[in-house]
């Protein structure tokens, strides 16, 4: 699934069957090459759902147990949720120091959260080539 497809999807509580939020973005951990949390529009309790609290990531909705699963980002997730670590739109550098373009979209596995692809202007780099996501660039071990 692509980040762009998943954005805007409703987040539904399996306890109350109510829509409690909408997917606004994703928090990516480059070290594990996976989505560690889903960002939602800020509520009084916070603005992220940790990936381990996502029950189902379906085509129509993301399900969580209850609205208590929407929390404020803390620790590592808070660091990665910082705007400096956003992936979309960022400049992409190869480990050889060549600019490859910018991140247009990200492909991920909706059951595991694993990043499977980094979509650039004209091609897609395999997700397992992701090395780092910093304030200046996304670094991938890949040459086109």
């Amino acid at each position: 699934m692509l980040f762009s497809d998943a954005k805007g999807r409703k987040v539904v509580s399996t306890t109350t069957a109510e829509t409690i939020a909408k997917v606004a973005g994703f928090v990516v951990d480059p070290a594990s090459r996976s989505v560690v949390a889903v960002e939602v529009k800020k509520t009084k309790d916070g603005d992220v759902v940790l990936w381990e609290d996502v029950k189902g990531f379906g085509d129509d909705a993301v399900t969580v147990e209850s609205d208590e699963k929407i929390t404020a980002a803390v620790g590592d997730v808070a660091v990665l949720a910082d705007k400096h670590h956003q992936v979309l739109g960022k400049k992409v550098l190869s480990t050889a120091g060549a600019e490859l373009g910018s991140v247009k979209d990200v492909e991920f596995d909706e059951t595991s959260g694993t990043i499977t692809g980094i979509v650039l202007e004209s091609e897609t780099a395999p997700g397992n080539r992701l090395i780092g996501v910093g304030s200046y660039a996304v670094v991938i071990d890949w040459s086109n």
Partner: protein
Amino acid sequence: MSVLMRAGEVAKRPVVTMQGEDVAQIKDIVYAPGGGEVAGFTLAGRGIFSGPRKEVLAWKSVAALGPDAVMILREDVLVSPDEAFAGVSGSGSGSGHGNVLGSRVLTDSGTDLGKVIDVIIEVSGANGGQCDVVGYEIEASEALKTNSTKVLIPLPDTLAASAEHLMVPAGAVDFVRDDLAGFGAAVDDFRAHLKGSH
């Protein structure tokens, strides 16, 4: 695989960690004493208001010198000049290839070929690979009889240099090229030619 580039183009290139942070940018190239090789780089901070940085980047700590960025593993490979260039005496002092911009290139037969405007370096491999000085870009004098005003001239492995002049063998004139494409081969041919003639 080896890549040729102008030293002048490396200046201002960002220094980026594998974590994607731009931690500095290249200020100047530091040549090893005796010329011939790049020992490392002095650095400036990022952004228009940041000045020079105390730390330097030794060539051995460069993971890749790419066309758009100089990649390093982590920010902590940037160290003090004493640490980076220990045993590299006289670095950056203007000796050898240290500060050749503006110097006149003179053949050993006494012809002035022109003024040095850039240094051509060859990067072969990285992380333990070499970064050699292989030629100069010069503003050609009339003696060279070339159509272009800027030409590339290959260098021998070692050459005599003063603040005023750089001495090259007269035979270098036959290996002058207009651009970087094909210049690597010209350098190899020139050096092979020198070995053969001694």
